């Protein structure tokens, strides 16, 4: 019997199928037309045709964040591939598993400045976990299997696979086999924390009088939420999440003291500043958390658990470093606590919680809404929370609305909050929400956005119609680039240089032109009823354009170059 032969393009699709891929997000072009032809001739994998490749990467990213699976992108050579760069950087900054299949001109033309040639591997080198240049069709299955393995293990991240046109064509065939049980001698991420370091960490925790657990995106990525909650309850400790870690523990848990950082709660930042031991779990001491590193928590012993050794002691010196997967390390800590018959120091805890509750009583996350005033953006997020019972998947763009969502929507579970924390990419929200909606069609999926952010990938309203993706877009429309405007108010003497949006479209009519539903909310008294109406529509995308108070600022806010707890609580009011 003769062995079946496949083209390189068919091998790409067969490899993805062997890796259980359900969706590819992409846009066709000359270099990858053979792959598109191979996709056409099968029905295991669905291709989602975006309107811009950047959106394809964000969609794959949103899908990956919501499901924990690898998001897959397909782009043609040259501009198709370079349009992916922002999305790749976004995934890299937030450690999201993604594989980008990038077309390339034929191997004989590489390096000749051929039509639609760019060195995509070179372009993306600083923003990827790894890349593969396939040069023969025999390279394809191995490269794709390794790309998935690398993207999804250790500290996850994006991987690029470059596919020249001539290895994809039907005239060039070979036998297909793929080994999905990948082993690489040069890549073996550390999984378990070193036992000696675990013992040291537990000893430090047991001696603490003012412990704070500080957890980040790593908790979400490693699905360690249940273990984290068990640890916090065992220790009876306060816990704060970073922007990326929201949902890592329920936002309504008694021990949760809110998000920390630039726009975090006063109690979270004060607790960190006054802690004697900080247990950092899958968090990387980003500058949006630490403020001035020279003034960061000078009296705290820092235990830092992270899968990535480069994150440890990069900005803040860790006294007890532990390298390992966060979920595995938390289990090790719990086991060690149990073995040492740990009993919480009730007296110290009581004093510590008394102090924290005094900070809590200052209600730093609050705002005032008078009936005759323009709608406050915080009020919109509160209404969204109430209507969706706190259960929606919320993809956010970047700006004031992002911070209001983080502050006022108490995320119940991990992966509900889908936001570009590391890169701060405007244009992320809508495509990311679409990725989440594909993954969970029966759930409420919301894109919270602003009039600036939404216009960066608004063309995807068309994709939503083609694939019936009924997300709810809630635009907090302040006719400005709100966060830019806020900084200009606070730092640049109120000079609003290019932060005012002239010539905004009628978002409702724009949505309607694609066949979606548009709802505008202008006054406070219609806010709740119209939002409820929007969320009751299940089978159509609804664009809710909420005209909010453009003068509203996000508070609390770090005082620049201060300590972590040097904060503005309101205009002119320091903590």
């Amino acid at each position, binding site marked *: 019997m003769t062995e079946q032969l496949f083209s390189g393009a068919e091998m790409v699709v067969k490899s993805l199928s062997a890796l259980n891929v359900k969706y590819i997000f992409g846009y066709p072009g000359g270099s990858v037309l053979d792959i598109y032809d191979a996709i056409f001739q099968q029905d295991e994998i669905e291709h989602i045709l975006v309107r811009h490749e950047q959106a394809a990467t964000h969609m794959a990213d949103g899908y990956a964040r919501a499901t924990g699976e690898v998001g897959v992108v397909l782009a043609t050579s040259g501009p198709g591939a370079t349009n992916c760069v922002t999305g790749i950087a976004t995934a890299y900054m937030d450690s999201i598993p993604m594989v980008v299949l990038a077309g390339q001109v034929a191997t004989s033309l590489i390096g000749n400045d051929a039509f639609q040639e760019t060195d995509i*591997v070179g372009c993306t*080198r600083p923003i990827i976990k*790894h890349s593969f*240049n396939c040069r023969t069709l025999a390279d394809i299955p191995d490269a794709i299997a390794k790309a998935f393995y*690398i993207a999804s293990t250790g500290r996850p991240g994006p991987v690029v696979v470059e596919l020249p046109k001539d290895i994809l064509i039907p005239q060039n065939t070979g036998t297909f086999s793929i080994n999905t049980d990948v082993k690489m001698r*040069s*890549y073996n991420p550390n999984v378990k924390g070193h036992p000696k370091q675990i013992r040291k960490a537990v000893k430090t925790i047991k001696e603490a009088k003012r412990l704070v657990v500080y957890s980040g995106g790593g908790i979400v990525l490693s699905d360690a939420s249940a273990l984290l909650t068990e640890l916090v309850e065992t220790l009876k400790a306060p816990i704060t999440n970073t922007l990326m870690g929201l949902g890592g523990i329920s936002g309504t848990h008694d021990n949760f003291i809110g998000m920390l950082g630039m726009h975090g709660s006063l109690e979270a930042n004060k607790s960190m500043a006054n802690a004697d031991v900080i247990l950092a779990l899958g968090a990387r001491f980003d500058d949006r958390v630490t403020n001035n590193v020279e003034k960061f928590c000078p009296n705290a012993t820092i235990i830092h658990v992270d899968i990535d*050794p480069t994150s440890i*002691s990069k900005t803040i010196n860790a006294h007890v470093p532990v390298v390992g997967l966060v979920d595995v390390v938390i289990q090790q800590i719990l086991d060690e606590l149990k073995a040492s018959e740990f009993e919480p120091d009730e007296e110290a805890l009581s004093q510590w919680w008394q102090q924290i509750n005094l900070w809590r009583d200052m209600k730093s996350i609050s705002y005032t809404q008078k009936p005759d005033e323009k709608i406050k953006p915080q009020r919109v997020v509160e209404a969204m929370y109430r209507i969706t019972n706190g259960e929606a998947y919320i993809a956010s763009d970047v700006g004031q609305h992002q911070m209001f969502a983080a502050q006022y929507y108490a995320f119940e579970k991990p992966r509900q909050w889908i936001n570009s924390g590391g890169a701060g990419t405007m244009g992320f929200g809508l495509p990311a929400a679409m990725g989440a909606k594909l993954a969970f069609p029966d759930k409420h999926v919301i894109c919270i956005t602003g009039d600036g952010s939404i216009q960066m990938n608004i063309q995807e309203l068309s994709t939503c119609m083609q694939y019936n993706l009924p997300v709810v877009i809630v635009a907090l429309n302040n006719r400005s680039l709100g966060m830019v405007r806020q900084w200009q108010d606070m730092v640049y003497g109120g000079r609003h240089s290019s932060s005012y949006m002239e010539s905004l479209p009628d978002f409702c009519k724009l949505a309607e032109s694609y066949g979606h539903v548009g709802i505008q909310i202008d006054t406070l008294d219609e806010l709740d009823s119209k939002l409820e109406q929007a969320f009751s529509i299940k089978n159509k995308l609804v664009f809710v354009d909420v005209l909010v108070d453009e003068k509203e600022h996000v508070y609390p806010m770090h005082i620049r170059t201060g300590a972590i707890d040097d904060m503005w609580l309101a205009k002119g009011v320091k903590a």
Partner: protein
Amino acid sequence: MRRILAILMENEPGSLSRIVGLFSQRAFNIESLTVAPTEDSSLSRMTIATKGDDKILEQIVKQVNKLIDVIKITDITDRSHLERELLLVKVAAMSDKSRTEVKRITDIFRGSIVDIGKQIYTVQLTGDAEKLNAFIETLKNETEIIEAVRSGTVGIARGEKALRI
């Protein structure tokens, strides 16, 4: 302070550029870099001479180690180790006096004259950077240096300790 890093990595296209790219992205300086396949052609061995304090070096080592192609990296600076660099230098040797002097200095430094032209000698010398610098300075006093090329440092730990899979 000056540091010598030895790196064992996959002999794959792009491996070298990833390491070099990482240094430039993170604003780490490379003083010299030497790389070639080892006795196992699937592996390459790289020696990087760089400068930095302990904190910078810790980041360099961690960042390089994080690259998928890198199998092992070690800092051999503080360990007893051998360092060698190859120098090829072309000097003017136009008179009997200068030819004699070049020959004499080369012998003292245990180098060898590897090519002779009518008015040119090419000298080969191996040793650590300090020895090569001293050789060049001495030659300069006696004749004109036309061209010099140095390989950059290669380093290996003394004794039992070995960088291998």
